C-alpha cells in the first residue's frame, strides 16, 4: 500500500528532504536535552522532538526514548477533536503544554510542549517535544507514587494548556506549574528547555520549506507516513497468520490492596499485514498506581515492535495505521480517568511489553527469523531520592542503576546482563560518580547471581544496589516497584521465570563502625546480615520515607526470562557462570544438573549426564498427565481449596472477564472429555512450533503436534499441546534458593514435560489452579 502520490515526487529530492528533516530535529532535540535539569533526560535520554502533519500523525521523530513516539500525536489529535481552533485558537508562536496521560504520554511526569507550525501565515502542521520532569507535585516527591490511590494523588495535570501565545511566554501558566511542585527550579528549567527546542525546530523547518517548496514538503511528509505503514504491513506478512498469546501476573500490594492481577497479550497476525493486539484476559484496574492509561500501553507496545520487529524501517506513527489495539476499558491496561497510573510505564505496562517480547519471539521462531527472538525482558523497580543536596538545594532524581536490567534469553544466546530496558534500545544506567548531584553514597552496584530466569539460555542478570543518604540530613527515599510475591518476568520454551524483586531497608546500621574496625561490610544482598541495625524486608513498592546517613537501602532489580530446558544448558557455560560468580552451587547442581569440581570448575561429563538422566526420570515419575491435572485443578477451584489470595483473584477475574470464564468452562469440558486416539508416529515435519514441538503430518494426512526430541505424538495440531504433557506444580523456592523466590501461595512454576522423554517444553509462572494458557492458535 505504498502511497499513490509516488509518481509526483522526485525520489531523490524526497530522500534528501528526509535526511534534512532528521538532522534538523536531532539538533532541536539536543537543545532540549542539553538545557534540561533532569537526570533521566541526561542518562536515559528521555526526550524527543517531532514534526507532525496537519492531522497530527508524526512523520519525523528524533527520540531518545522510543516509547514516546505516539505521545505528541495523541495530544494534537485531542486538541483538534476538542475544537481548540474554535475558541482557544492556534496562532503563530503558540505553544501548548500537556501531561494528561489519558490524552497522551506514559504518566504525569511526561510533559510535552506542542506548537502549531505556520508557514507564511498558514497552519500546515505541528512541532512537539517532551521530557520526563522529576517533580510534578504529587502525593510524594517524584510522580510515580507508591501511596497514590487515585488520579488526583499524582500531581498537576495539564490537558494541553497554552503556555506561549504568539511568541510570548505566559507567566501565569509558568507560575501555576512552579507553584504546584516541590522543585520549581527544575520545572522552570525543563519547561523553558522545551520552549527553546520547539523554537529552534520552527526556525529550521521554515528554512527547509523555503528550500524545498511547500507543495513538495506537504506531499513528501504525507508519503513518509504512508511508507511507514506500508513497511509495517509487509513485515507482518512475513509471519505465519494466527494468534499468539502470552500471559503475565502481578502482585498488586500496598496498604490498601493485596491482590493478584493478570494480563494476557494476544497478537494476531493477519494476511493483509495488520497486527491486532489485544488483552482478552485482563484484571480490572487496581486501587494504586500500577495501572495503565490507553496512550501509555499503546506507546509501550509500539516501542517493542520498533526495536524487536520493525527495526529495519524508517519509522513514524504512520505505522500505527497498520496496528489495531483493543484493551477492555476499566481494565488494568486501559484504566479510566479515576485511576492512578504512575507506575504503568515501568510496571505492569512493561510486563505487557514482556508478553509482546514473548509472542514476537514465538512467531519469529516459526518463521525462521531467529535473530528477532528474545524472551520476556524485565520491568523496573525504581528507587527515587528527594530532599536537599549538600548545598541545601532541592533535589529529586531516580537511582539510575534500575536501568541495569537483564534482557530475555535469545535464540542461541543468554540474555544480555544489566543492559536492556524495554523503552530504550540505547540504555544508559549512568555511572556511580553521578553522586556529585545527589545526596547519596553508593556501596554496591553489581550483577546479582541467578537474577535472570534459568534455562538452556539464561535470562540476562540484573544489578543490585545498596546505598545510603550522604552529606544531607533531609533525604527521602522511596521505591516505585512491584513483584515481592510473584515473578513478573516469564520464561519461554521450558526456561524459568525470574526470581522476585526485593527491597531490604536497614535503619540505624553500624556500617561505618564496622568500617573503622576494617571488618567485612555487606556488598551484596546475600550478606546484609553483616551489619547490625533494624532490618526490614519490605515489599518492593514503598512510599518515600526519611532516611538518615548510614541507613541502607538495598534493592534487587529484575533480570530477563530464561529460554529452553535448563538441563540442556551447555555445562561449560554453567561452569563459567559459577567461576564468574554469576550463579550458585545450588543452581548448578539442582537446576542445571551439572557435576563439576568447585576448585578448578572442570565438568564431570559422565556424572552430569547421569544427573540429567535422573532428572528426566523424576519428571516422568512426578508429572501428572494433562487431563488428570486439569481435572484436579477444576476440582480445587470448585471446592475453593485454594490460597486465599488466589481464591479472591479467581472471583474477581471471573466476574470481570468473559474470556477468562470461557477458559474455565473449557477446562471443565476438557477434564471430562473422552480420550482421543492419536497416531503412534508421524513422518513429515510441517513446521517447527518451538525448539521441542513440531507440527507433523501422519501417514493418513492428519496434522499432529509431536515432541521433536523423541517423536512422541502429543495431540492434534489445533489443540493446546500443553494439555497433553505431563504437568507438575513446582514450588519456586525449589528453583531460587539463594534469591527471593515467588511465594507459592501466590505463584507456582507450572512445568510441562514430554510424557515420553521428559524434556521440559514450557513453564508457566502462574497462581495455582489458574487456566493453562493456549499459546498458539495458528492457521495451519
Amino acid at each position: 500500500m505504498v502511497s499513490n502520490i509516488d509518481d509526483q515526487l522526485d525520489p531523490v529530492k524526497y530522500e534528501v528532504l528526509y535526511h534534512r528533516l532528521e538532522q534538523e530535529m536531532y539538533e532541536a532535540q539536543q537543545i532540549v536535552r542539553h538545557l534540561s535539569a533532569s537526570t533521566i533526560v541526561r542518562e536515559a535520554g528521555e526526550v524527543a522532538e517531532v514534526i507532525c502533519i496537519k492531522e497530527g500523525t508524526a512523520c519525523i521523530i528524533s527520540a531518545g526514548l522510543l516509547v514516546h513516539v505516539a505521545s505528541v500525536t495523541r495530544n494534537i489529535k485531542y486538541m483538534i477533536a476538542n475544537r481548540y481552533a474554535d475558541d482557544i485558537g492556534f496562532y503563530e508562536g503558540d505553544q501548548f503544554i500537556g501531561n494528561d496521560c489519558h490524552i497522551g504520554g506514559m504518566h504525569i511526569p511526561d510533559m510535552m510542549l506542542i506548537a502549531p507550525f505556520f508557514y507564511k501565515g498558514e497552519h500546515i502542521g505541528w512541532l512537539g517535544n517532551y521530557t520526563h520532569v522529576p517533580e510534578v507535585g504529587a502525593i510524594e516527591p517524584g510522580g510515580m507514587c507508591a501511596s497514590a490511590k487515585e488520579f488526583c494523588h499524582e500531581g498537576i495535570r495539564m490537558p494541553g494548556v497554552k503556555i506561549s501565545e504568539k511568541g510570548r511566554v505566559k507567566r501565569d501558566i509558568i507560575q501555576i506549574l512552579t507553584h504546584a511542585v516541590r522543585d520549581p527550579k527544575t520545572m522552570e528549567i525543563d519547561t523553558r528547555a522545551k520552549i527553546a527546542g520547539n523554537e529552534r525546530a520552527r526556525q529550521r523547518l521554515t528554512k527547509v520549506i523555503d528550500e524545498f517548496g511547500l507543495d513538495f514538503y506537504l506531499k513528501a511528509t504525507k508519503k513518509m507516513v504512508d511508507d511507514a505503514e506500508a513497511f509495517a504491513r509487509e513485515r507482518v506478512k512475513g509471519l505465519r497468520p494466527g494468534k499468539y498469546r502470552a500471559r503475565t501476573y502481578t502482585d498488586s500490594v500496598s496498604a490498601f490492596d493485596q491482590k493478584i492481577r493478570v494480563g494476557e497479550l494476544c497478537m494476531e497476525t493477519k494476511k493483509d499485514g495488520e497486527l491486532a493486539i489485544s488483552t482478552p484476559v485482563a484484571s480490572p484496574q487496581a486501587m494504586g498506581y500500577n495501572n495503565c492509561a490507553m496512550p501509555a500501553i499503546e506507546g509501550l507496545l509500539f516501542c517493542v515492535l520498533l526495536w524487536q520487529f520493525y527495526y529495519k524501517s524508517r519509522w513514524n506513527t504512520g505505522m500505527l495505521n497498520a496496528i489495531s489495539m483493543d484493551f477492555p476499558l476499566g481494565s488494568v491496561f486501559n484504566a479510566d480517568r479515576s485511576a492512578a497510573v504512575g507506575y504503568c510505564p515501568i510496571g505492569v505496562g512493561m510486563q505487557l511489553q514482556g508478553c509482546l517480547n514473548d509472542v514476537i519471539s514465538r512467531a519469529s521462531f516459526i518463521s525462521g527469523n531467529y535473530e528477532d527472538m528474545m524472551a520476556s525482558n524485565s520491568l523496573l523497580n525504581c528507587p527515587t531520592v528527594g530532599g536537599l543536596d549538600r548545598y541545601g538545594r532541592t533535589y529529586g532524581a531516580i537511582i539510575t542503576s534500575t536501568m541495569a536490567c537483564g534482557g530475555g534469553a535469545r535464540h542461541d544466546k543468554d540474555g544480555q546482563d544489566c543492559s536492556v530496558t524495554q523503552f530504550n534500545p540505547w540504555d544508559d544506567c549512568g555511572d556511580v560518580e553521578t553522586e556529585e548531584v545527589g545526596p547519596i553514597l553508593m556501596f554496591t552496584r553489581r550483577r546479582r547471581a541467578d537474577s535472570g530466569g534459568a534455562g538452556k539460555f539464561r535470562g540476562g542478570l540484573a544489578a543490585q544496589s545498596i546505598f545510603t543518604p550522604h552529606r544531607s540530613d533531609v533525604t527521602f527515599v522511596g521505591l516505585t516497584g512491584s513483584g515481592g510475591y510473584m515473578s513478573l518476568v516469564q520464561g519461554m520454551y521450558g526456561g524459568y521465570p525470574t526470581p522476585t524483586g526485593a527491597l531490604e531497608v536497614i535503619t540505624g546500621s553500624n556500617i561505618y563502625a564496622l568500617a573503622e574496625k576494617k571488618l567485612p561490610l555487606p556488598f551484596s544482598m546475600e550478606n546484609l546480615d553483616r551489619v547490625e541495625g533494624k532490618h526490614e524486608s519490605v515489599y518492593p513498592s514503598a512510599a518515600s520515607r526519611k532516611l538518615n546517613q548510614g541507613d541502607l537501602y538495598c534493592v534487587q532489580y529484575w533480570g530477563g526470562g530464561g529460554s529452553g530446558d535448563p538441563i540442556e544448558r551447555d555445562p561449560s557455560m554453567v561452569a563459567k557462570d559459577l567461576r564468574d560468580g554469576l550463579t550458585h552451587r545450588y543452581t548448578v547442581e539442582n537446576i542445571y544438573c551439572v557435576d563439576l569440581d568447585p576448585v578448578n570448575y572442570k565438568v564431570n561429563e559422565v556424572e552430569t549426564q547421569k544427573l540429567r538422566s535422573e532428572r528426566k526420570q523424576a519428571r516422568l515419575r512426578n508429572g501428572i498427565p494433562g487431563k488428570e491435572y486439569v481435572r484436579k485443578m477444576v476440582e480445587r477451584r470448585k471446592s475453593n481449596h485454594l490460597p486465599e489470595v488466589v481464591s479472591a483473584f479467581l472471583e474477581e477475574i471471573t466476574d470481570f472477564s468473559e474470556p477468562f470464564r470461557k477458559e474455565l468452562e473449557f477446562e471443565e469440558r476438557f477434564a471430562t472429555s473422552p480420550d482421543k486416539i492419536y497416531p503412534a508416529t508421524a513422518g513429515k515435519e510441517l513446521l517447527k512450533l518451538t525448539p521441542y514441538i513440531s507440527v507433523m503430518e501422519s501417514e493418513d494426512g492428519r496434522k499432529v503436534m509431536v515432541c521433536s526430541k523423541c517423536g512422541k505424538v502429543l495431540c492434534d495440531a489445533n489443540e493446546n499441546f500443553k494439555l497433553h504433557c505431563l504437568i507438575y506444580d513446582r514450588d519456586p523456592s525449589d528453583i531460587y534458593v539463594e534469591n527471593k523466590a515467588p511465594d507459592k501461595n501466590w505463584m507456582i512454576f507450572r512445568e510441562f514435560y514430554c510424557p515420553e522423554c521428559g524434556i521440559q517444553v514450557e513453564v508457566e509462572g502462574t497462581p495455582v489452579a489458574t487456566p493453562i494458557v493456549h499459546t498458539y492458535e495458528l492457521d495451519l
Partner: protein
Amino acid sequence: MEEHGEKYIVYTDTGGTFSDAVIVRQDGTFVNGKSSTTPDDLEQCFFNCVSAAAKNIGLSVEEVFSKTEILGYGTTAGTNAILTRQGAPDLGLIITKGFEDTTLIGRSLGRWAGIHPTQSIHVPTTDYPEPLIPRTRIKGVTERIDSAGEVIIPLYEHEVRKAVQELTDAGVSGICVVLLWSFLNNKHENKIREIIEEMAPGMPTAISSEVSPLIREYSRANSTIVNLYIGTALRTLLERIKRRLVESGYRKPMLVMQAAGGLSRRKVVKPVSTLHSGPVGGLVGVRFWKDQYGVKNVLGSDVGGTSFDVSILSEEGSPYIREPVVARFTISNPMMEIISIGAGGGTVAYVDEMTHLLRVGPMSAGAKPGPVCYGRGGTEPTVTDADVVLGRIDPDYFLGGSMKLDKAAAEKAMKEKIADPMGISLEDAALDICEIIDQTMGDTLASTVRQRGLKPEDFTVFGFGGAGPAHCAGYTAGTSYKQVIVTPFASTFSAYGASTSDVLHRYESSPFTVMPGLPFDVTTGYFDVKELPQEHNDAIKRYNGICQQLIDNAYSDMADEGFRESDISISYVLEMRYGGQLYEVMTRPKKIIIDSVEDMNNILNTFENKYVELFSEGAMYPGGGIEIYNIVVEASAAVMKPEPLRFPKKGKDPKNALKEKRKAYFKMSDGRKWVDTPVYEMGLLEHGNVVNGPAIIEHVDTTFVVLPDRLVTVDEFHHMVMTEK
C-alpha cells in the same frame, strides 16, 4: 632539485591497511611514500614507507634521517591491538569493592556503544564486546572516597594484599587500579601501587588517577585498562624504532601523535592518548592551513572509503569529545572532535525492499570486498561505482593507473540492483546515488556548524581524503560557505597535516566548584557580582589550587620536553553550567585563577555569552548560580614548520593542464545529460588558472569533480578554490 643543506620534517602514519610517510621540505613541498602495513612487525612498515618516500627524491633512508629536524609518528597500533585482542595478556584489575562489575556492566551502554544506531536499535543482536579483563581477574577491595574527595571508608590493606597475591598467583602481566573518586583523592590508589610494588616488584601498573584523572568511573577504568593493555607493546615498538633510527643517523627526539591533536615525546606519551590519532592528523593540517590563509573559521571534510569525517575549527578553537568510543570501549581521554557518519566511496546503495525507494548507506563495502569496480568480490553497487559509471573517475587512472577498475562490472551491478528495479536509466541511478550521498554529507557538515550557534557563511571548507574532492562540490551545494578549498595532495592531507603539528599536552581536572546564590539582574538575567562572594571562599580557594596545580604540571612537563617558558603557550577551557543543569558549556576564558571580582566576572561573562549564543537569552537560568565542572589547561610549543611555497601568478587559461575531454554525466541547467567534459592534470595547473565547471581535475591519487555551477581558481599555493559561478 638541490637537496643539500635542506632540513626535513618526516611524518609516518601506520594505518590498518597502508602506512604513509611524508618528507616535507622547509618550503612546504613534499614527497610521500606508501607501503603495506605489516601487522606482525610494525617497525618494518615504518621504515618501508620512509624508504619509499626517500626513493622518490633519490635518497637513502640514512640520508633522509641525517637531515631530519623533526620526526613524527602516528599509529593505529593501539586501536588494532584492542580490536585483535593482541595487547598485554592476562591483566588484572583492582577496584572499589561492590563495583567489581563496573567494566562489565559498562554503564549499560557498553552493549551498544560503537554500533551504528540503525543496527543497535535491534536489541537482540547487540552484545558487549569481549572484556579486556575477565571477571575472574577483577578483585574488589574495601575502601570508599566520596564526591568531596573525603575518605569515608579506609582502605582495607589486608584485602589489597590478598587481591595482589591472587592476581600474581594467576600469573597476571600487569595490574590496573581504579577506585571511585580517586581523581579527587588518590591516597588509596597510591597505597595500592605501593603494595603491588612491595609484593610484586616490577609488576607493570596503571593507576586511574594518573592515566585519566577525570570523573566517571566506567570511562576512566577503560582508559586505565587500555593504557596498560596497549602500553607495553607500544612502548616496545617505539623503543625498537628509536633504536633503529639512531642507527640510521637520527639523533633528535621521536614525537608521537596524540588524539588530542598534538605531538608528544616518545618517552612521556600515554599510550591510550595515541588511540584514534590518525584522523586527527587531518584536523591538524586544517589548522595549519587556517593560519596560512589567515581565516578565522574552517571546516575539515574528509571522505574516505567508509566514513565522512567532519572537523571544526572556529575562532574559539576546536571542540573535544570528552568520552570517545574506541573499539567499542568508551574511554575518558579527550580527543579532538571529529564528527563521523557512515558515508564514503564504499557506501552501499540499495533499493528498499518494502518501500521500493533508493537508499544509500550507512552500510559500507569497506576496503574488502570494496566497490564492485575494484574486482575484489564486491557485488553491491557503491558510491565509487556510481562515480565510475558517471565517467567522473577514470577506470584507467585510479591511483595513477596502478589499479585498474572494472567499469563494466560496476555498470552491470548498478543496472541489476538499482536501475532496473527502479525503472530508470543506468546513469540516472548513478547520479541519484551521488545526489543522495552528497546531501547526507552536506547535512552533517552544515549541522556541525549550526548546532554550535555558528553560521556556515563564516566558514571555509577544506575537502580532502581519497574520495573528498570527487564529492565536495556536491556536499557543499546549497549552503553558502565562504569558499571550498581542495589541495593537490588531498589523499595524504592527514599525514602532511600531522607533520605541521605542535608539541601539545592537555591537563584536566573535575573540581565541582559549586556557587549557588550569585547575584543577578532580574530584568536581564545576567549575573551582577560586585564583590567576591564570601560564602564561596573555600570553594574558590580549592578551585584556584586545582588550576594552579594543572598550570604547574603543564610548565613542568613542557620543560621536560626541552622547551623554555617563553616558548610555551597556555590556553584554558572551563566547562560550566547553571546550577541544577546537567550539561556543560565549553568556554574559553583568558584567565582561570580567580584573584579578584574582575577575574570572576570575566569567567561568568564568557560563560553567559557562549550560553546565549547556543541557546538564547530565554533559556538563561541565573537563579541556579554557577557550577564549574571541568578545568582544562592546554600547553603547546611550536616546532619547526614548513613554509609553503607561494607560486607566481600566471594567466587564467588552464589549457596547459588540459589532458583530454571525456563524456561524463551531469545535471545541467537544462536537465541531466552526458557532457564532453574537459579533464585537467592537477599537477600542471598554475596560480591564476580558472577552471569552469563542469570539469574534472585529476591527480595521481584523487579526482576533483567540478560541478556545472562551480568555478575553480588556482591560488598561490596551487590549491584549488571553488566558488559558485
